[in-house]
């Protein structure tokens, strides 16, 4: 089986006999003889609980939660608004109403799709060599602190950021020390950078890379909900004023009643959520940190404060919402290295010795 893979790599460049092939530590989904032409993309062997569409371009959590419901409610309510309320309002008020509504709906849907389908900042798991190296580093200093009975070392590292002591925890699934502000999402089984929360409405984690989309989504959704609520109320008020009364107005336009109910119940929660996240953005906090009270200064001393805050609301907002967009680290559409072809950029292929290591130095393709 190994010989097939070498032939795929580069039959001309291996004059010396390769060392005894050993089973590779990569996941077992490496079919060989049938796939001599087709190479596997990295998303096909991705270890986390995610689903991929469009050949790896779109990523979403395996449990998509109520994302279809979210999208459905937004589209149906907006649809009812445009069909049943807009004609009346255009006639009696202004034709700007469907335009504003249209712009808001477009913003909401686009930011929802981007939040759901973007990689939130997933950290790829450690390669076996990295994991072994970290184990070695943990065991060496830790051995002195263990007592007579075997106890695994605590697996935390303390570092100082901006005069604050921050504890880095070891992730047993991903086999890495989590960077600061990173958390492991049990639903997606991934470590996510600047982990905010896992949102079932959006069907994805909210983290470093898609927080700005999420914020844009909830803010535009609050505007949209408030706008529809206001317009429908105006519509019903105008209709009932023109002689027939409220009940008759509702009977004339039952869709408005549905929209009213939906918007009334959602506007409070969504406005509340937007307000909460505006506070988080202004203080450069994540939901995770806020809930755990990481920087709230439990001891009451002024020593604990958010070390990541720039101490200016404006700067925090700029950094969180308009900062540079980090790249996706998981390279979903890249090819699995054993099957990679030589290309113009750096391509250093090694005969797989003990460890299955192939270094492919190409920049990952642009992903969402």
């Amino acid at each position, binding site marked *: 089986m190994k010989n097939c893979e070498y032939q795929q790599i580069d039959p001309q460049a291996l004059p010396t006999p390769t060392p005894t092939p050993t089973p590779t530590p990569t996941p077992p989904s490496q079919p060989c003889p049938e796939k001599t032409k087709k190479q596997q993309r990295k998303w096909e062997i991705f270890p986390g609980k995610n689903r991929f569409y469009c050949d790896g371009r779109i990523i979403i959590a395996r449990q998509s939660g109520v994302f279809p419901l979210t999208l459905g409610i937004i589209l149906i309510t907006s649809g009812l608004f445009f069909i049943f309320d807009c004609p009346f309002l255009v006639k009696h008020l202004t034709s700007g109403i469907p335009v504003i509504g249209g712009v808001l709906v477009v913003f909401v849907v*686009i930011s929802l799709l981007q939040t759901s389908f973007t990689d939130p900042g997933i950290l790829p798991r450690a390669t076996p*060599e990295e994991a072994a190296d970290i184990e070695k580093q943990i065991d060496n200093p830790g051995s002195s602190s263990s007592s007579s009975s075997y106890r695994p070392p605590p697996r935390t590292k303390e570092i100082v950021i901006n005069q604050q002591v921050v504890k880095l925890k070891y992730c047993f699934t991903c086999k890495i020390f989590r960077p600061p502000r990173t958390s492991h999402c049990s639903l997606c089984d991934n470590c996510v950078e600047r982990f905010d929360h896992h949102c079932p409405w959006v069907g994805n984690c909210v983290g470093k890379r898609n927080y700005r989309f999420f914020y844009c989504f909830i803010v535009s959704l609050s505007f949209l909900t408030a706008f529809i609520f206001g317009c429908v109320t105006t519509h019903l008020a105008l209709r009932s004023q023109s002689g027939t009364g409220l009940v008759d107005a509702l009977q004339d336009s039952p869709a408005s009643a549905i929209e009213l109910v939906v918007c009334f119940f959602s506007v409070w929660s969504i406005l509340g959520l937007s307000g909460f996240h505006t506070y988080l953005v202004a203080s450069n906090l994540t939901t995770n940190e806020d809930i755990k009270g990481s920087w709230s200064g439990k001891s009451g001393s002024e020593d604990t404060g958010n070390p990541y805050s720039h101490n200016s609301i404006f700067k925090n907002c700029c950094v969180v*919402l308009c900062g540079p*967009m980090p790249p996706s680290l998981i390279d979903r559409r890249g090819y699995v290295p054993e099957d990679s072809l030589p290309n113009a*950029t750096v391509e250093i292929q090694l005969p797989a010795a003990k460890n299955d*290591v192939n270094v492919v130095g190409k*920049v990952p393709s642009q992903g969402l």
Partner: protein
Amino acid sequence: MAETHSLQDLRQQAAIASKVFVQRDYTSGTICKFQTKFPSELETRIDKQQFEETVQTLNNLYAEAEKLGGKSYLEGCLACLTAYTIFLCMETHYEKVLKKIAKYIQEQNEKVFAPLGLLLTDPIERGLRVVEITIYEDRSIGSR
């Protein structure tokens, strides 16, 4: 034949002796920065100053990618106004710098590291967690 290796020789003949991992340095926060501490396994292979210079250059390049300034804010605001659809067609500043970094690493590998029997892996291949340096067995020195 000289004791130095080229990338071609490494590919064909060398066996991997070990790997060294240069971890991230989080003391300045969550920005991408690697520790410049010289690993002991490299003492016999490479000059300490050369190593530190390489890592420092990488750190500077990553700092440039993540720099908060007028240009990045402008990019961010423009993206926000277009509902972030601009990311679908435009290459971000970060990605442009990543390409620069890949080129720098390739140059360093060809000029500095490969002749010493070492190979630097682009950190983006490892999720920006580590700089992986592969140390090759130096067979030619013993046999010639």
